[in-house]
C-alpha cells in the first residue's frame, strides 16, 4: 500500500465519525472498533486513503462509525466489493469488516477466492458464533448442539474452522485474537496492514445478547494465559501465566509439554509462520484439549492480484499499439466512394 502524502501522526479519535454507535451495551464490537481506530492512528495514513467495506450484520455497521470512506454492502459480498475498490484504485488502504455469517455462510465462496487471488485487502472477521443482527440463529461457527432460535433442539452441523478454511484456500496472511485483547488486536491489525496481499484476521467477539460467554472458558482474564498460546515467528511455542507450558510437534501433531518456568526443553517447537503444516495443525487445536492459538499463524510473501493485473496492462501497452483509431480500423477495411 503506497501512500503519496508524507506520513502524519494521528489520534485514534481522528478516525471516529459523528454518528452515535448503536450496538448493544456490552457488545465486544465496541472494543474492536476502538482497536481498529487505534491501529489506523498508529498506521498513520490520512483517513481519506482508507476505505472500510462491510457486508450486513451487527459487525458490518462499523463503517458508519469511521471517519474514513466506507461502504456498507449487501450480505456476504464485502470481499468482492472491496476487490473492486482496490483494483480500481490500488493506492487505497482497503479493509473488510465481516461476520461469521457474512463471511462464512452466505459469503463463504468469496472468502476462498480472494485468498487464492491474494488481493491486497485486509479482512477483519468478527466471529461471535451467532447471527446477531437477525436475533440469534446459529452460524457456521456455532458449536454443534447449540440451542438457538432456528435450532430449538440444537444444531446438527459441525462448526467450520475459519482459519483452516483460509489456509486451505491459499491465504498468505492469517492471524487470530480475541476482542478483549486490545493491544494484541491493535498490533495484529497493524501487521495485517503491513502485509502485501490478502490478510485474514480472525477475531473472537462476544455477542452479549445472543451468545454471551461462548469464549469465556479460554479468554476470561484470570485463565486466558493458561488457555491461549500466542505464537510468534522464530520464537518457541511457550505459554502459561508462569510460562511453564509449551507445544512440541511430534509425529503429525502438537503435544503439550510442561516444564520448570525458565528452562523449557529445547525440542519445544520454534514457530515458523511460513510452514503450512504448523499453521494447519494449530488451526485444529481447541480448549480444553489444547490452548487456543492466537497471533500470526501464517505469513508468506506473494505477488498481489492487482499488481499482476496492472503488470499485464503495462506489458500489453509496450507490446501493442495503444492508438484507438488503429483498433477501430483493424480488420479488413474497405472504402465506399
Amino acid at each position, binding site marked *: 500500500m503506497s501512500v503519496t502524502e508524507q506520513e502524519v501522526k494521528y489520534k485514534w479519535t481522528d478516525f471516529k465519525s459523528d454518528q452515535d454507535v448503536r450496538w448493544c451495551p456490552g457488545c465486544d464490537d465496541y472494543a474492536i472498533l476502538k482497536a481498529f481506530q487505534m491501529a489506523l492512528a498508529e498506521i498513520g495514513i490520512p483517513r481519506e486513503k482508507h476505505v472500510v467495506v462491510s457486508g450486513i450484520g451487527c459487525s458490518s455497521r462499523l463503517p458508519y462509525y469511521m471517519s474514513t*470512506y466506507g461502504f456498507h454492502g449487501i450480505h456476504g459480498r464485502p470481499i468482492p466489493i472491496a476487490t*473492486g475498490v482496490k483494483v480500481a484504485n490500488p493506492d487505497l488502504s482497503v479493509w473488510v469488516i465481516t461476520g461469521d455469517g457474512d463471511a462464512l455462510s452466505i459469503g463463504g465462496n468469496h472468502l476462498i477466492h480472494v485468498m487464492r487471488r491474494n488481493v491486497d485487502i485486509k479482512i477483519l472477521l468478527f466471529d461471535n458464533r451467532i447471527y446477531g443482527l437477525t436475533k440469534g440463529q446459529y452460524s457456521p461457527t456455532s458449536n454443534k448442539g447449540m440451542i438457538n432460535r432456528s435450532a430449538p433442539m440444537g444444531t446438527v452441523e459441525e462448526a467450520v474452522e475459519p482459519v483452516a478454511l483460509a489456509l486451505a484456500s491459499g491465504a498468505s496472511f492469517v492471524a487470530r485474537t480475541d476482542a478483549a485483547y486490545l493491544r494484541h488486536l491493535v498490533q495484529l491489525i497493524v501487521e495485517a496492514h503491513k502485509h502485501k496481499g490478502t490478510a485474514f484476521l480472525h477475531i473472537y467477539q462476544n455477542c452479549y445478547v445472543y451468545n454471551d460467554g461462548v469464549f469465556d472458558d479460554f479468554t476470561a482474564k484470570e485463565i486466558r494465559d493458561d488457555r491461549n498460546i500466542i505464537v510468534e515467528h522464530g520464537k518457541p511455542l511457550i505459554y502459561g501465566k508462569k510460562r511453564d507450558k509449551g507445544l512440541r510437534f511430534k509425529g503429525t501433531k502438537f503435544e503439550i509439554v510442561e516444564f520448570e518456568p525458565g528452562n523449557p526443553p529445547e525440542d519445544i517447537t520454534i514457530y515458523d509462520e511460513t510452514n503450512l503444516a504448523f499453521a494447519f495443525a494449530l488451526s485444529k487445536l481447541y480448549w480444553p484439549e489444547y490452548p487456543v492459538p492466537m497471533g500470526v499463524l501464517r505469513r508468506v510473501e506473494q505477488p498481489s492480484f492487482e499488481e499482476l493485473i496492472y503488470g499485464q496492462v503495462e506489458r500489453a501497452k509496450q*507490446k*501493442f499499439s495503444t492508438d484507438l483509431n488503429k*483498433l*477501430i480500423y483493424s480488420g*479488413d477495411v*474497405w472504402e465506399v466512394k
Partner: protein
Amino acid sequence: MGKKTEKLEKVTVKFAGDSGDGVQVLGDQFGNATAVVGNDFATLPDYPAEIRAPQGTTYGVSSYQIQFAAYDIYTPGDIPDVLVAFNPAALKVNLTSLKPGGLIIVNEDEFTEQNLRKAGFTSNPLEDDSLSSFRIYKAPITKLTIESLKDEPIGHKDKERCRNFLALGMMCWLFSRPLDPVINFLQKRFANKAQIFEANLKALKAGYNVCDTMEIFPIHYQLLPAKLEPGKYRNINGALATAYGLVVAAHKSGLQLIYSGYPITPASEALHNLAALKQYGAITIQAEDEISAITIALGATYSGALGVTGTSGPGLALKSEALNLAVMTELPLIVFDFQRSGPSTGMPTKTEQTDLLFALFGRPAESPVIVLAPLSPADCFWTSIEAVRLATKYMTPVIVLSEQFLVHSSEPWKLPDLNQIPPIEVKFRTDPNGFHPYIRDEKTLARPWVKLGTRGLEHTLGGLEKSNIFGTISYDPENHDLMNKLRAQKLQRVAQDIPDAQAVGPSDADVVVVGWGGTYGHIKAAVESANQDGMKVSMIQLRHLNPLPKNLGDLLRRFKKVLVPELNLGQLSYIIRAKYLIDATGYNRITGKPFTVSELLNFIKDEYESLRMH
C-alpha cells in the same frame, strides 16, 4: 470465363457442415470478399449447443448464413437461395428451410452409407428424387482438395482441412468475388505456417479454377455494388462493437474501465474481446460467480472507475440483489444482458427478447434503472457509449439489453471519426464545502460522485435507506417516501435528455409497427416491402426502453393501429398498454431464432387488411 453470367439483386447463401468443417471461417471470408466488391450484407452464424458433437450428427451441424445485395439490406435473409452442405447431416437439417428451386451444392464425397445413416437418411437423397424441387450440384470437394494438394508436404488430415477454402474458391467464382481479401487473410492467419498457408492458397485457387474449367456450374452470378454512404467500412459483429464502444467511452470519459464478468454463453464473447484490449487500459476480471462479478464492478464504480459487468439469462437473475444496492447508492454501474433463450438454461445458444420486463421490474421493491437496447451489430458500439453517458450523468445504473443474435451477427460498419464523438463529461466532486453524499444536481437529480482518496469528502454509502441530501441512515417515513419518488423522478429527467421517438414511413400511414432492439433489421425490411406492396405503414424502433421517449404516447395515438412484434409473449405491448392505455396488437413468437421478414410481412398484411375491413 466462358460461362453465362446472370445479374442478381440480392442472394442469401448458407454454409453448413460439421463443427470441424470450418464453415465459420469460410463464411467470414466470403463476407470479406463480398464487402470488397461493395455489396451490402448481413451474416448469421449458428453454432450447435454441443462443443464438438460426434462427426456427421445432425446436432453437430454448424452453419453460417449470409445475405448480400446490390442495395442496402438489413437482415441475414430468411431462407437461403443457395445451400452449401458439407455432409448429409448439414443437408438434412437445412432441407426444410430452403427456397424451392434453390441451389444446393453438396460435397458428394461425404455422402457415404455411414454418414447418411448418422444423418437419419434412409436412402441417399442425391440418388432418390427427394431433392427434385431443387437444383443440385454435386462436387467431390474432398477429392478435389486432396488431388489439388497431392504435391504439398503436409499430412492427409491437414490437406483435408483445406476443404473449406476450396469450397470458398468455388463460391467466389460462382458469385464473382475476388480472391485477394481471402489471400490477405490467409497470409495473416498462417504468417508463420508457410506450408499450411500454401496449401490453403492452392485449395482456394483450385476451387476457383475448377469451376472455370470443369462443368460444375452452368452459369455464374454478378451483383452490382450497393449504394452505401461513402466512407470507410469494416465488417463487425455485436460482441466486438460492444467492446469497442466501452473502450472508446472509457477514453471519452477519462475513466478506468473495469469489466468484471463470469463466463456464460453468449456474454463470454464480450469478456474475451475486452480481455484482449489491455493495451487500451481495459481491465477485465473473471469473477468466481455473477454475484462477485457485479459487486466487483460496483466496488470499482464506488472507487471512481467505470465498472461494467455483463451476463446472460441465468446470470442476470443472480445480479438482481446487487443491482438494488447500486440503485440505493446511486452509482453509475453498467450491466449488459446478452439475452438468450430461457427460462433457466433454456436453449443457451439461441436468441430471444424476453428480459425486457425483468430489466424493468427484476428487482425487489421500487428500483428504477435506465434500460437501453442496441438495434444492430454496429449499433452495439453506439449503445455502449450512450449507456456510459447516461449512467455517469444521472448517477443511475443502466441495463443494456443486447441479444444473442446481435452478438454473433455481423454487418458492414461505417467507421466513425473518433474525434467527432463528443467527450463524456464526468465531474468528480472535489470541493468539501457544502458537500453531502446525497445533495442533488437540480437538473439531473444526480448526487455527487467522489473519487475515493479525495481529502475532505469521506463518507459512507450503503444499502440502508438514507436521508436525502445528508445521506445518513434514516427510518423517517416521509424521507423513505421521498427517496422512492426521487429515484423514480430521475428517470423522468433522463427522458428529457434522450431523442424523441421517430415514426419512419409515409406521412399518411395509419398503421405503425413498434419494435425494440435487435428486431430492427427484420422489421425495417418487412415495413419497406409492405409499403412497396402499396400499404401505408410506419415503423418506430426503440433503443431507449426506460425511460421511453417522452413523445411516444402522443406519437402512437396518431395511428389507428399499433403493431408490436417481439421475440417474447408481449412485453413491450404490456408496457405500452400500461403507460398509454393503447390497445397494442402483438406478434409474439419465441423460437430461439430471429423473425423472418416474410412472417412479419404477413402479420402486417393481415392486420392492415383487418383494419381496412372494419
